[in-house]
């Protein structure tokens, strides 16, 4: 009996992870390797591409699109800050004062996700058009200058990004705050800490892992997003995602596009690692 169940028992985990592992190898690792190889090739669609280890592809990409990459990171950072500032008070209130309806509030916060991200962004465009339902009445009443616009500004792109990714900030912050519980801040109050002190020195540090997770979960996809910039932004708000897409589909410049994608991935990875380091990754992950 023992022998019969032990032998398959030891091999079992490998059989269980094998299908998923093969899938991720075929559609994640191999594609990344293929993109790495493509990023160093030269040639064009007509004559075909050839492996020449042309590192210049990376330099060219940075020379031409460095400013766009910088703008993407800047927008991503601004939207991340906005997300954190907007999400924290709500997560705090739900965790400490939500009572029995906590789950219900969280559900409301994620429920917009049942509408396609593209559709919601387009709805913002409908809402914010120059004479639309929000700006039109204000302009008619003379409260806003007739030339005032929200669409096609960098502010609209940053707000759109924050809007679309807000739940990814609220949820981890909420989880961290719910774990803090009521007892610790109460104990701090009993020891004559003021409300502010109890928050700043007990609750805020303990919720840091949630903020960290939220920042990573929002900053990375927001910096790589291009839907918000294309729908809500103007010609000066192009983000790196649009460039990558255009290089692949409009220009068929596969090596340049691959090099740009890799640069973006590397920059985001470095930013996250640097942030983790500055933040103290071990403390953040909650490991002793």
């Amino acid at each position, binding site marked *: *009996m023992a022998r019969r*169940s032990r032998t398959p*028992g030891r091999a*079992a*985990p*490998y059989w*269980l*992870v094998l*299908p*998923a*592992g093969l*899938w991720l190898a075929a*559609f994640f690792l191999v*594609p*990344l390797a*293929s*993109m790495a*190889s*493509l990023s160093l090739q030269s040639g064009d669609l007509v004559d075909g591409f050839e492996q020449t280890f042309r590192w210049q592809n990376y330099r060219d990409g940075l020379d031409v699109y460095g400013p766009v990459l910088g703008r993407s990171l800047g927008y991503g950072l601004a939207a991340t800050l906005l997300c954190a500032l*907007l999400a924290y*008070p*709500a997560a705090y*209130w*739900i965790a400490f*004062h939500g009572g029995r309806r906590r*789950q219900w*509030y969280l559900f*409301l*916060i994620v*429920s917009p*996700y*049942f*509408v*396609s*991200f593209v*559709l*919601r962004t*387009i709805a913002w465009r*409908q*809402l914010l*058009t120059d004479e*639309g*339902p929000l700006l039109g009445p204000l302009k008619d009443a003379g409260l806003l200058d007739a030339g005032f616009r929200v669409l096609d500004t960098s502010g609209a792109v940053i707000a759109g990004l924050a809007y679309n990714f*807000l*739940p990814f900030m609220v949820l981890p912050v909420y989880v961290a705050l719910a774990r803090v519980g009521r007892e610790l801040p109460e104990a701090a109050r009993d020891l004559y800490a003021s409300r502010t002190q109890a928050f700043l020195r007990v609750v805020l540090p303990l919720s840091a892992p949630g903020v960290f997770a939220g920042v990573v979960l929002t900053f*990375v*996809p927001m*910096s*790589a997003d*291009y*839907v918000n910039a294309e*729908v809500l932004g103007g010609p000066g708000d192009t983000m790196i*995602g649009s460039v990558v*897409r255009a290089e*692949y589909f409009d220009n068929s410049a596969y090596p340049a596009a691959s090099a740009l*994608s*890799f640069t*973006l*991935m590397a920059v*985001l990875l470095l930013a996250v690692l640097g942030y983790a380091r500055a933040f103290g990754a071990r403390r953040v992950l909650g490991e002793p």
Partner: protein
Amino acid sequence: MIGRLYTWALVGWLLLPVAVMAVFGFNDADPRRNVRWDGFTLHWYAHLLDRPDLTRALLNSLAIALVSAAVATVLGTLAGLALGRHRFRGRGSANVLVLMTIACPELVLGAALLSLFVTLNVPRGFGTVVAAHVMVALGFVAVTVRARVGALDPAVEEAARDLGAGPWTRFRLITLPLIAPGAVAGALLAFTLSIDDFVLTGFTAGSTVTFPLWVYGSLRTGVPPQVNALGTLLFAAGVLVAALSARSRRAS
């Protein structure tokens, strides 16, 4: 009090575009200029499927989401089971790999897949989109199931073994029912990720069109009100399914 007001204001902000979308689905306007309120109509709901290409795109989206959610749920559940319960060589690397697929921006995932497909001359379409969606969703399912498995009491399975149940019987009668809530949550997540996906689909779809791709394409010529109506119905269906699954979870 301020906290409650603030939270509700934030929820209002989040749901405002959903409301706008729903309202414009009842708008009696010229379908090419659906930006101003011109009176209430049910016309667009009555003519919901009047645009064959839009209907086709929606059906594609549903089919892709169903197939990829099913595959991702099976693969992700098995992997989550192994990662949550067994200690084995390579477990750390497997966890990192799963985390990487979740953390990697979709743009990079899409670009990498496209690079592979153009290098190998793979024709892009339904199959490549499913491959991509499964790849992204698999990690989310695995993480969800892993969390569920970690919370289980191993004594239950040991008891079944002591009572003479073989590995397959134990899996079918003990493990599977216990991790089912995690697998169902993972499946819903996989379905939602797939049906909403835009970036990854755009890179891998070739000439296949899904609902988000069609909507984005129609932006230039004017989004027809049928899109608003269909979006509203999808929202209602999503809320309903989530509410039902939450209810059955509470009952169990």
